[in-house]
């Protein structure tokens, strides 16, 4: 970071004139996207130290999860990273499937990938456009919200809800994707790449944006790893760790995509890494779409795994067939066999490695469920990232880290 020479009087340390001001960037502030508090000690405009307070939206997810059966926990995983809730949902379903030893068919995996990549695009769009808003450029945000509406319409076709989707079931999806969903997906894949280029062109070589973001909020790869960074923030620092490549889940190994990596870990690199990840997500979307269209005949109607113990049968079967009625009863009343054991599964969320540590004691509800939330882990580094920075750089760092309050407090 360039050191600007201070042309002010040098005061002796400890003198009454040289004191730091305390600024409370409180839980409600136009710049805090979500409720988190930073108490900053400022020496003029420079930050000497920062202390974070979180927990203003603590909703006790982990305790709540001990009360709910496995299939009801999906609704609370939605509300963790609410900008990309399908990824949280799919991560939870994949964890349950690992515990219950359920193998999902390929078509289900590809459909899941479509939903997850759409969610990733949606999350990165919010983050990048808010970075623009914080540096004063409101246009990009409003322009890009239109395309988030398209993504919401796709979710609505599939699961009925726009934001907190509760999409999918253990073993697959609740219904097959309709033709309308695929039409909307095609429309999105047609229109969005040009919009992304246009959005990027507003910022990428924009001198004001570059001067505000380059060199601010930088972190080295070693410090980032020590702080437990994952996701785009770590990749901007130079480490190419992506859970989709390291431990592929949901058939990601069948897809061809690259992982963009930055070099300095500053705000500008994070912005560019997220933009490039959106491009790679588009690539994955196209491949997934072609693979799904390639299924023919009976395989094209498969949308869930054949696990009657954990996947509710169709209502018309429940009313007419005896086995379906029995399975329905068993699943709802919690009499299906859940294995005893502990499993840790992670997925690549919008912010990094979202992990689920599930300990099951054979009962309907988990004995313990712990969420490894990436935002919570890397927000600790905020005081180190902003040491010596100016106040406006601190605001930019906060928004470029993509802090989502629902994920910070569980």
């Amino acid at each position, binding site marked *: 970071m360039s050191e600007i020479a201070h042309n002010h009087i040098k005061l002796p340390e400890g003198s009454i004139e040289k004191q730091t001001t305390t600024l409370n960037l409180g839980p409600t502030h136009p710049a805090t996207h979500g409720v988190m508090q930073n108490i900053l000690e400022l020496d003029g405009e420079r930050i000497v130290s920062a202390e974070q307070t*979180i*927990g203003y939206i*603590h909703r*006790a997810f*982990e*305790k*709540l999860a*001990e*009360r709910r059966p496995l299939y009801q926990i999906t609704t609370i995983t939605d509300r963790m990273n609410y900008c990309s809730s399908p990824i949280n949902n799919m991560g939870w379903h994949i964890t349950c499937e*690992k*515990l219950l030893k359920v193998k999902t068919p390929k078509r289900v995996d590809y459909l899941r990938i479509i939903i997850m990549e759409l969610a990733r695009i949606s999350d990165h769009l919010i983050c990048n456009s808010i970075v623009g808003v914080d540096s004063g450029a409101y246009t990009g945000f409003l322009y890009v919200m239109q395309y988030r509406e398209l993504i919401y319409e796709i979710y609505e076709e599939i699961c009925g809800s726009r934001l907190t989707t509760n999409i999918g079931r253990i073993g697959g999806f609740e219904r097959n994707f309709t033709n309308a969903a695929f039409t909307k997906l095609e429309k999105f894949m047609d229109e969005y790449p040009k919009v992304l280029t246009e959005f990027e062109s507003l910022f990428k070589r924009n001198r004001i944006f570059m001067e505000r973001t380059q060199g601010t909020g930088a972190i080295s790869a070693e*410090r980032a*790893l*020590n*702080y*437990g960074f994952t996701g785009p923030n770590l990749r901007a620092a130079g*480490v190419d*760790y992506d859970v989709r490549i*390291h*431990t592929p889940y949901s058939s990601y190994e069948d897809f061809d995509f690259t992982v963009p990596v930055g070099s300095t870990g500053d705000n500008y690199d994070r912005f560019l890494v997220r933009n490039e990840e959106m491009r790679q997500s588009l690539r994955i979307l196209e491949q997934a779409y072609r693979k799904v269209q390639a299924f023919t005949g009976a395989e094209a109607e498969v949308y869930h795994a054949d696990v009657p113990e954990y996947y509710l049968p169709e209502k018309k079967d429940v009313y007419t067939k005896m086995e379906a009625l029995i399975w329905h009863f068993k699943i709802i009343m919690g009499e299906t066999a859940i294995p005893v*054991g*502990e*499993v*840790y599964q*992670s997925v690549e969320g919008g912010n990094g*490695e979202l*992990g689920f*540590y599930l*300990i099951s004691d054979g009962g309907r509800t988990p*004995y*313990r469920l*712990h969420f*490894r939330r990436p935002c*919570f*882990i890397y*927000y*600790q*580094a905020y005081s180190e990232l902003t040491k010596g920075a100016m106040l406006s750089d601190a605001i930019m760092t906060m928004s470029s880290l993509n802090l989502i309050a629902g994920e910070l*407090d*569980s």
Partner: protein
Amino acid sequence: MVLTNETIEQRLKAKFGDLLTNFETPYGMLTFEAPKDYNLKLLQFLYDDTELRFQFLTTLCAVHYPDQPGRELAIVYHLHNLQDNVRIRFKVFTDINTPDIFTATNLYSTANWMERETYDFYGVNFVGHPNLKRILNVDEMDYFPMRKEFPLEDGTRIDKDDAMFGRG
């Protein structure tokens, strides 16, 4: 040398001998148990060893087992070796009346808030932690909510009728 669960187990047994117990591999991840005084030494060994290189702390959490007297609280560490792509998990058990565990913040800066969260939820006292106070709950709270004896709901709420919700 390819790092598999067996080679990790052998190396750990070679260094620590009988101190580490209960080696199992649920769902493919090596899990073992260590005595609570050795957690830092174990973490340091796993960090420094040139073959094991577990240098990424994925997560740290606690579990409460009220029906195991003397071993009620388990603190679980998940570690990840990024170069060889191996994950392991180890647990440290402690008594609920003296839940003192050495802090890992000197080795992993990420353990700072993870340990504060564990303290907030379970009351585990991390010895040597720079700032052990509540992080997610209100500061005035005087109990540790995730322990099994405490209910989920707020007992003082007046607008919801427990009988209608099937509890109480």
